């Protein structure tokens, strides 16, 4: 019996059409993504382990506090001890690449949404789609367009993790107090000055919350992305599931959680107002009130 609305057929027809006629476009996108994520992953793999320890712990000490820095050292040692270092760096590379691409597209889109109600009306349902459509549904076309491997994994992750960056950028700019915007205009800001000298700085906490959410969503996507060959910790988890190996699955999961905590605390710290402090004064206050610093991982 013919259905009245064969939407599924339309979609697969559309995908076929794109496959036949727009392969060049997809190859271009794939090359771009490959470049970003490939280089990032290579870089992370090539970085000596001690340097990763030092950089992450150093950032933790500067932005959050000594207790968090200690946590970072212990957590990274755990990953090393589980012999998951390579997978973790793969995942970190994937997450960072996806985040970079998501922010590169998402933040300007958020600005456009904030500036134009029409753009906002068009983009909002697209975001709803991206956020709520079950990830498996777009894994299939992603494989069709880009094949298996890191690239479709990154793209699926980008789609899934971009919406909060767009939404929170839009929200942040729209919530800049009217009088601050008026002050900017009254003192003679042109459009770009208004954006960069008034709106973006005042929206910064909201923007950083968006960045943080994007990273978190990207991390939560890695397991699913590994099903199409994205590799990394997701692969470990997936292997654990396939072999019913609870221990292996848990190890992979623990790696994801550790990465999540480190990235979350670091990005959150950039959203707070203390960004105005210089690193030096930050360091000073660290020693003077080290006991008050809350850095519980």
């Amino acid at each position, binding site marked *: 019996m013919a259905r009245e609305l064969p939407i599924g057929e339309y979609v697969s027809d559309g995908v076929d059409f794109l496959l036949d006629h727009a392969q060049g476009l997809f190859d271009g996108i794939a090359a771009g993504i490959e470049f970003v994520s490939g280089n990032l992953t290579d870089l992370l793999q090539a970085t000596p382990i001690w340097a990763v320890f030092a950089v992450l712990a150093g950032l933790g000490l500067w932005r959050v506090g000594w207790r968090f820095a200690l946590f970072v050292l212990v957590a990274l040692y755990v990953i090393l001890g589980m012999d998951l270092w390579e997978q973790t760096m793969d995942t970190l590379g994937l997450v960072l690449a996806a985040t970079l691409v998501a922010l590169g597209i998402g933040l300007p889109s958020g600005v456009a949404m904030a500036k134009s109600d029409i753009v906002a009306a068009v983009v909002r349902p697209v975001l709803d789609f991206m956020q709520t459509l079950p990830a498996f549904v777009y894994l299939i076309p992603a494989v069709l367009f880009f094949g298996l491997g890191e690239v479709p994994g990154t793209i699926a992750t980008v789609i899934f993790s971009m919406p909060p960056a767009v939404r929170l950028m839009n929200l942040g700019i729209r919530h800049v107090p009217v009088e601050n915007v*008026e002050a900017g205009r009254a*003192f003679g800001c042109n459009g770009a000055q208004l954006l960069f000298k008034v709106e973006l*700085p*005042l929206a910064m906490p909201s923007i950083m919350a968006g960045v943080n959410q994007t990273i978190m969503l990207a991390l939560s996507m890695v397991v699913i992305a590994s099903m199409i060959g994205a590799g990394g910790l997701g692969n470990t988890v997936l292997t654990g599931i396939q072999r019913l190996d609870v221990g292996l699955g848990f190890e992979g999961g623990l790696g994801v959680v550790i990465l999540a905590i480190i990235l979350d605390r670091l990005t959150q710290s950039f959203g707070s107002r203390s960004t105005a402090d210089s690193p030096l004064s930050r360091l000073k206050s660290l020693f003077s009130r080290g006991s008050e610093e809350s850095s519980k991982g």
Partner: protein
Amino acid sequence: MDSKLAVQGVYKVFGGDPREALERIKRGEDKDTIFAETGLTVGVADASFSVEEGEVFVVMGLSGSGKSTMVRMLNRLIEPSAGSITLNGRDITRMSRKELIAVRRRSISMVFQSFALMPHQTVLQNTAFGLNVSGMKREEREKRAMEALDAVGLKANADSYPDELSGGMKQRVGLARALATDPEILLMDEAFSALDPLIRTEMQDELLRLQSEQARTVVFITHDLDEAMRVGDRIAIMEGGRVVQIGTPDEIVRAPANDYVRSFFRGVDVSHVFTAGDIARRDQLTVVERSGMRLRAALSRLDQSGRQVAVVNDRARVLQGVVTVDSIAQQLESSVGGKDGDIESAFIDDPPILASTPLTDIMTRVAESPWPVPVVDDEGHYVGAISRATLLLTLDRQDPEASEEEASHGA
């Protein structure tokens, strides 16, 4: 061309095509009818006024009267729907975007009710904001910002962040930011309304002090009559988008244009608007022309008028002194054999009040004096006298029509 800033027939209609609303306004329909029938909101209707160089021009009205819309049209934060606004003879409403930005950077700056400081910048950076936007080199702009901060007494806080300052200090920064660009016109939109009363008075004094050092052209928006009276050289009162009266503070207090204007004065302290000369009355004291008047004659004059006190003037109405029944009687008693003397001998020590003294400063004096206190002008001419009753009546000044209304409602 004489005026610094001239506003001619300016309208603002919000929501959709303003033409229909403009026509209806011209036909004399009011704001509410227009909104009900067309959905258009009339913000400002046919506003005209001019602001002279160096004066503080206050635009006063209740919320919804269009005063904030009015001030935002002066630098086109809100685009006027019709009319012209000329600054130094140039029509702001016809300027291109580029020219407008230049005017905002150089000629007109603004102080906001909620301060509108940038939280991520230091006090110094905030103060230099306008100069920064116009592309001035860092060193130069920070030097000028520092001067502006010095002028409002906040030099020491240059490196603080806004959230470390109190409300009054924040608005000083707002003021410094506006002054740093050395504008020709300063727009102040309810600039002190968010401050508590004590700080507000302090800021008003600060503004008056700055004006006394360097008189700028200021357009000051407020809903507070006391504030308008204190800082304003002239006041425009807005009601429902229209300017209903323009005048100096005492012109408006003495001859309010309508009930709306009058309603502002209910419960308002008029003591710093009126001066002693305004309320001094001629019929309070017996007047004695001095020449040749002897004590006994003066006494009989007082007896006839049934009063206790008389002022003594010379022929040119210059006040010579004050005598009372008691002081004359005492003088007569103490003189040898009850001999009649000159009236000067009975003068009591009761210096007159200058006519230009504000009421605030004479209250104690009048309240403590057992008789009406004489008032003289700058040349010493007798103007009249103020009794306790007169003073109380003035301070308790109620709109007579309103009291009648209330009385008839009560009946």
